[in-house]
């Protein structure tokens, strides 16, 4: 039988929003638990050089997150990255979070579950996943030392990945179906690298190979030509999808799968807050995730004070 444990606040997700909320909750002496099913830091753990977080000229995502984790833990927040959440009940009082090993009861839930990488929408994806198709350049980049690499995508994450992978690849293609969405600064850095060949307005139509990826079929939208490109590995950075599957039965979600909540991060259920990229909002940046984490924690404390009289 699973052990039952009560907490004031449970934060789901240990990215920038979740850890900031944990830091604030910890400082307000709230009994706080953070549960993370993936890796601490979320998307930002993968970022190699962050140059738009105030106070840092340039910082590695992993270093920034490690410091924030330490800050939150110093103020008493507990972070569990191994015990996976199986089910949540948010409308009850107390709220219930059931993990593989325990049943947690709590008064406040802050959902900061962030986003997951969008999978490559080709039928061959499953065949080549981990065998030439990858989603984490920090984890799998070293396997491509001296090889030919392609990065798919045109946003900041894709350009960041391509810049990082030039450390390993003898050649790095950046393939994107439309125009760049990445910051000018990152684009400029990528264009200056002689190992990089940028292919915009180009779609990847098929993946081929025997046991692992050997080549991709690409379609140049400008010329109408279809070509075959030899690549040893492709790193997919074609956007993200909200990590809200756990909450589908509990909360109404927007058309994009995010949680509707205003700037106060309050959801339709009292005591349940949504913070960071998982919340429906126009701007999703590291700074706005930190802002959401702060807001959710401070308003969670107000809610708890009222609840406890």
């Amino acid at each position, binding site marked *: 039988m699973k052990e039952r444990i009560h907490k004031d606040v449970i934060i789901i997700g240990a990215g920038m929003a979740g850890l900031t909320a944990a830091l604030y909750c910890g400082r307000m002496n709230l009994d706080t638990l953070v549960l993370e099913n993936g*890796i601490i*830091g979320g998307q930002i753990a993968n970022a190699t050089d962050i140059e738009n977080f105030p106070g840092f000229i340039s910082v590695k995502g*992993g270093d920034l997150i490690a410091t924030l984790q330490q800050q939150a833990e110093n103020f008493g927040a507990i972070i569990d990255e191994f015990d996976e959440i199986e089910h949540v009940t948010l409308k009850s009082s107390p709220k219930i979070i059931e993990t593989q090993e325990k049943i947690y009861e709590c008064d406040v839930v802050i959902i900061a579950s962030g986003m997951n990488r969008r999978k490559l929408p080709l039928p061959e994806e499953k065949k080549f996943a*981990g065998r030439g198709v990858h989603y984490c350049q920090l984890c799998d980049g070293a396997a491509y030392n001296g090889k030919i690499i392609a990065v798919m995508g045109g946003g900041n994450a894709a350009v960041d990945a391509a810049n990082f992978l030039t450390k390993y690849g003898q050649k790095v293609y950046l393939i994107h179906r439309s125009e760049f969405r990445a910051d000018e600064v990152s684009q400029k850095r990528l264009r200056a690298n002689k190992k990089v060949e940028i292919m915009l307005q180009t779609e990847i139509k098929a993946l081929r190979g025997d046991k*692992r990826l050997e080549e991709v079929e690409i379609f140049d939208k400008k010329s109408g030509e279809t070509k075959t490109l030899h690549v040893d590995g492709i790193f997919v950075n074609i956007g993200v999808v909200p990590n809200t599957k756990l909450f589908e039965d509990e909360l109404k979600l927007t058309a994009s799968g995010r949680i509707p909540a205003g700037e106060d991060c309050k959801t339709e259920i009292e005591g349940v807050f949504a913070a960071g990229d998982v919340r429906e909002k126009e701007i999703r940046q590291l700074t706005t995730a930190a802002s959401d984490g702060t807001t959710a924690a401070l308003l969670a404390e107000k809610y708890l004070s009222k609840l406890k009289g």
Partner: protein
Amino acid sequence: MVKVYSFEGCPYCDKVKKYLAARGIAYEVHDIEENPEDAAECQRISGDLTVPVTTIDGKNFVLGFDKKKIDELLATA
């Protein structure tokens, strides 16, 4: 002895190491970026250089972080 084929800065490699440490299990780190012999051995075990690769006997292994599979692997020791 549990061996973790990994390299510095790989988030899921760190997660495997933290999990083993949390369970009080001693392990050896084999850095595939620093040591070509370790890279070759990792490739021999899993057929690829994708990490983390966790193994005890050099035959059975777990690729990535999968708590259930790592627990099963440890139970064979």
